């Protein structure tokens, strides 16, 4: 049975925070009458089904986002290749046009799209992985304004990006799989990405101004902020009514030392005489937290932040975006990946502080909290960006428009049946 209407494959791997934007985009596209299928980590199947998406798990669930590159490669990325290859082979038998929307050069869908002539639309969830000499990620943005600016621009950053592009763990593991698919070996990430035909940033231009050397074509959709269908428990609303707007602390997926994170949070609340809400599945609340601190395994951030004085988190882009949306100042206790870059952007925009490395102490947390909840300038800035988001709305419909424009302009995409 064949169809001429393209099937949209959404492919991504990572924690739920990495997959939610793809799920939300899939839901929007399904509502617009498209057929969508998600390739992702185990654990999101119920959500995919609820949103009307087909789903194929290609690797195990990722609950720990602090794993190093080798572990991530061995436990998540490489295992995703076989199931993805099988899925594409089955798709080819259906002789239905395909388009792939994926979120990384590491996705197994890239070589398969190359083999079968399927175009890739690439989504960038955060701006930090765009290797720009004009607007590099933290900490190099600052270096380009510093006393060694020419050195960084002419020598260091090109060398750094060249090294990153060689992906010395990933590419040697990828090439044997490419050979099985009858594809020539590659040496760099840009060679893998030759299959990408359009790119979309899931963030607004005031968060990351597009740089002249970003790969083209590139559009910005704004933050993906789909409306929730959840509700808040009465325990929370009664707590807020009694204690006032709390500081919300959430360490995000897989931060290993949640007990320390929340002990520092408790000390912060105590020092500032503020109520606190702790959100984590991995925290066992000890006795003696007191009546001014409440712990939940999960609450929808969109709803909770409407009642928050401040958000303290690890700096994932999704959580960062929700604080902007709610007009709540934020403290980012950054560890890795895009987190320090997000923290730096939040700090530069005047809506929060980034605590990183040796600067991330309880004393610094208390001082930053005190400043952020009392500063009129900060309140003015958070309100400015809240209004900007309220005015532009959720990025998901714009992302769906982008996919549809791509289909209209570039499609249909009859698969090329390579040997």
């Amino acid at each position, binding site marked *: 049975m064949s169809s001429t209407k393209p099937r949209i494959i959404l492919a991504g791997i990572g924690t739920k925070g990495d997959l939610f934007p793809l799920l939300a985009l899939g839901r929007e596209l399904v509502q617009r009458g498209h057929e969508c299928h998600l390739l992702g980590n185990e654990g999101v199947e119920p959500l995919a089904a609820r949103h009307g998406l087909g789903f194929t798990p290609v690797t195990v669930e990722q609950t720990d986002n602090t794993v190093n590159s080798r572990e991530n490669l061995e436990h998540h990325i490489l295992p995703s290749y076989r199931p993805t290859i099988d899925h594409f082979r089955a798709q080819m038998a259906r002789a239905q046009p395909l388009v792939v929307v994926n979120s990384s050069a590491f996705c197994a869908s890239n070589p398969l799209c190359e083999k079968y002539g399927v175009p890739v639309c690439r989504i960038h969830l955060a701006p930090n992985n765009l290797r720009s000499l004009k607007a590099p990620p933290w900490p190099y943005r600052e270096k380009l304004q*510093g006393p*060694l600016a020419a*050195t960084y621009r002419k*020598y260091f950053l090109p*060398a750094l990006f060249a090294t990153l592009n060689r992906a010395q763990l990933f590419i040697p593991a990828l090439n044997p799989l490419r050979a099985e698919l009858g594809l020539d070996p590659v040496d760099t990430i840009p060679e893998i990405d030759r299959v990408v035909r359009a790119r979309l940033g899931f963030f607004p231009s005031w968060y990351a101004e597009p740089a002249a050397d970003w790969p083209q074509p590139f559009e910005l959709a704004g933050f993906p902020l789909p409306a929730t269908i959840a509700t808040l428990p009465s325990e929370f609303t009664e707590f807020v009514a009694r204690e006032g707007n709390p500081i919300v602390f959430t360490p995000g997926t897989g931060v290993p030392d949640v007990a320390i994170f929340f002990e520092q949070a408790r000390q912060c609340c105590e020092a500032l005489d503020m109520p606190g809400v702790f959100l984590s599945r991995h925290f066992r609340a000890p006795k003696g937290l007191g009546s001014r601190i409440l712990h939940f395994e999960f609450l929808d951030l969109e709803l909770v932040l409407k009642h928050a004085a401040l958000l303290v988190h690890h700096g994932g882009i999704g959580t960062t975006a929700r604080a902007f949306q709610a007009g709540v100042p934020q403290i980012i206790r950054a560890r890795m990946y895009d987190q320090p870059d997000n923290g730096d952007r939040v700090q530069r925009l005047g809506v929060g502080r980034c605590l990183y490395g040796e600067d991330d102490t309880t004393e610094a947390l208390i001082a930053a909290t005190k400043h952020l909840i009392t500063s009129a300038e900060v309140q003015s800035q958070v309100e400015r960006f809240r209004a900007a988001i309220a005015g532009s709305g959720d990025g998901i419909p714009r992302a769906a428009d982008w996919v549809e424009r791509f289909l209209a302009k570039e499609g249909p995409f009859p698969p090329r049946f390579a040997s």
Partner: protein
Amino acid sequence: MDLSKLAQLTHLEASFSSIAAAFIGEVRRQLFVPEHADDDVEDEFVALRQRVDAYYPEFCAIFASSLLDQLGPERLQELLDQMNTEAAQRYLEVAEKIQLELQQSAPSLTHKLTAAAQSALAHPGWSPAPTSGQRSALSLARVAGVGRTLYDLAQAVTRQVLLEHRGNAAEPQLLTSPDAQRIQGLLVGMLAGFHARLFIRHVGEPHVASVVAELDRKPLRDYVSARVSAKPAVDRALEKLFERMTRELL
């Protein structure tokens, strides 16, 4: 304590200059800057060197403080007053350069020492008596305060070669066996010879005898001894200073 007098008599400016050059060299290496970079980049490094030089007073203070800890203010003052001799000054002028060249040569020396240790291990009975030249070189290394450095390097190479040969790091007698002692002695002799050649080249052959004689008596002997004792504290303080310089300058 007159800090400028201390700096002048102990040639701290030369020491700092070597350290500053090493710092800049490391920054260039880490930032992938070629030997001959574009003019605007070279200009940045000229400016960086000027900012590094602003740390010279702190460097002097670290050095002075460590010597004061070792000697006390009166003894240090007394030593400085007595160190203004031609031979002492000739040595102090080059001491840092010798030390630096010794450190920079460590990788190539390690290669040669490893080959020598492997050869000695293959010939268990080979244990030549030290020549008079070797004995003098060992004595010079001791009075110049580098004996410990040479011994540590020889021990590290001996340990590595024995481990590769026997493969048991936990063996308690690994470095105390007669074989280990024999190899280590040979390597220390080689290193002392290398140091002596450096010493002669930097001090200048006509002045070697007078400088060695000066090193072997007070006040220079006590000063060198105090510097050796102060080295761990100085190294720790300099490490912190470099961390701060990295944070503040880069």
